[in-house]
């Protein structure tokens, strides 16, 4: 109230009682925020639409809920879930490690390193992942043996049949990881570039070497920018693993396909696969949030405390 006093003395001529304006008492007035009617209308519409869809789905005899129940936790499906998770984890770990290397090469002062990295990204981003997987799967038909030897002579010290080295699982990991390296290198590069030059200068001025600056100063800050799209890539990878069914990788979709090719219960088994993919992606999303919080340290209000 005391802060109102100077203004009341200015407008003292317009109204009596020391209060400016129309004579109402602002202390008696209650402020109510505007009602968001649209939210309620939309919610009602969603309930009706989703409800009728669910009802029609559950009433459809082709869904065969009992078949879904029968196969959801069956041994082949669970083994498919496990290989899908293994493929995802291996392809991500190898792919992101490769992506960091390629990103550093692309940011290097050495033009040869830059050219190698650019060509790599150009090639693996420029061809469909399905084609790459088929290529790795059928490499044995192209090169029957792989080995190490003297370049250009064809004399090898050691030599192995390609088929024995490149099992469908190894071919799948290789194909997915090489592709992932190309995409994640762009994410890592954007993250590194997001850290200001003045941070590098501060680190240099303290006598830190290039490697120390990258590990201790740039990367921890770049992670804030890198983690969200990388989480996105990981979720995308989990679903991309379903493509390895074309080279006989024993992933979740392949297992489901093998079952419905025998019993023709196609839709229920696709629903089983869908439920597992959704469950796995949901868990990954939670993990991604944890990571974002961890690397947001000192950068956002969420990270503090």
């Amino acid at each position, binding site marked *: 109230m005391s802060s109102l006093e100077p203004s009341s003395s200015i407008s003292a001529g317009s109204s009596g009682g020391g209060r400016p304006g129309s004579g109402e008492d602002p202390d008696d007035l209650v402020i109510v925020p505007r009602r968001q009617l649209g939210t309620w209308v939309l919610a009602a519409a969603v309930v009706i639409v989703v409800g009728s869809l669910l009802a029609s789905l559950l009433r459809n005899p082709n869904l065969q809920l009992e078949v879904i129940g029968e196969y959801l936790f069956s041994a082949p499906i669970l083994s498919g879930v496990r290989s899908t998770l293994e493929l995802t984890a291996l392809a991500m770990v190898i792919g992101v490690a490769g992506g960091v290397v390629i990103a550093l090469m692309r940011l290097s002062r050495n033009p040869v390193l830059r050219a190698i990295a650019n060509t790599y990204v150009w090639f693996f981003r420029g061809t469909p992942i399905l084609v790459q997987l088929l290529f790795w799967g059928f490499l044995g038909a192209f090169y029957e043996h792989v080995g190490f030897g003297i370049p250009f002579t064809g004399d090898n010290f050691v030599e192995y049949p390609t088929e024995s080295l490149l099992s469908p699982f190894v071919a799948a990991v290789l194909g997915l990881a090489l592709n992932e390296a190309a995409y994640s290198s762009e994410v890592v590069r954007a993250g590194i570039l997001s850290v200001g030059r*003045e*941070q590098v*200068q*501060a*680190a*240099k*001025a*303290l*006598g*830190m*070497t*290039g490697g*120390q600056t990258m590990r*201790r*100063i740039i990367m*921890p*800050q770049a992670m804030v920018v890198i983690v969200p799209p990388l989480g996105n890539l990981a979720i995308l990878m989990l679903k991309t693993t379903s493509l390895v069914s074309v080279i006989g990788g024993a992933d979740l979709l392949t297992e489901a396909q093998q079952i419905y090719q025998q019993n023709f219960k196609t839709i229920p088994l696709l629903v089983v696969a869908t439920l597992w993919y959704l469950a796995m992606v949901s868990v990954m999303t939670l993990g991604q949030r944890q990571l974002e919080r961890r690397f947001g*340290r*000192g*950068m956002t209000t969420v990270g*503090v405390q």
Partner: protein
Amino acid sequence: MTEHPLLAVERLHKSFGELEVLRGVDLIVEAGQVTCLLGPSGSGKSTLLRCINRLENYQRGSVRIDGERIGYRRSGNVLHELSERDIARQRRAVGMVFQSFNLFPHMTALENVMEAPLRVLKEPREETRVRAERLLERVGLREKAASFPRELSGGQQQRVAIARALAMRPKLMLFDEPTSALDPELVGEVLGVMTSLAREGTTMVVVTHEIGFARRVADEIVFMDAGRVLERGAPVRVLDAPRHARTREFLAGV
């Protein structure tokens, strides 16, 4: 003890493409001395500072700290550029404080101060922590040790930055307009810390627009314009009886 000055910059030339920003600058700073660089913006003061610890390269001239040539190895009349690792080693001897603080945002104040002694000098963690706490105490921020930079005011951040630079026990401290990015009421606390450093015998080169600070603390004032040193001398001499018209003009405007 030795015949050479702590910092000797001789006939330094630096250009960015066509633009020549340093045109043969000399600067001698004796141990324990405070030198303030004054001059209009674009006169080359900050560039000179950044050449001293090789954050910028230069086309001609030489920089020596405590007699050691910075950035190059001489054989005959040729200067060969040192490796990044050797330059990093030379930079340990020079502390730098930036206009925009440049603290590491993902580390607490204490971690900022501890980082370089831990990683660069490989000092034991416990010893480093005790020393870092003492340095924060010295800049009046002992109780902010666990705060992240974004939780600190500009003045507090700059004082942490000073502590971070001091943690390397540098022979020479460079200040690049340390108060230019601060709100006016926060300038005093940073200048206070710098004044006490100067009183304790720290060798300092300070680029600043704070004429009052320069008058009180500097042993020598160097006035630069268009990439050249126009005049130099004791504060009283340069500030109260400038010889050059450009200096008079600049001082009248500040």
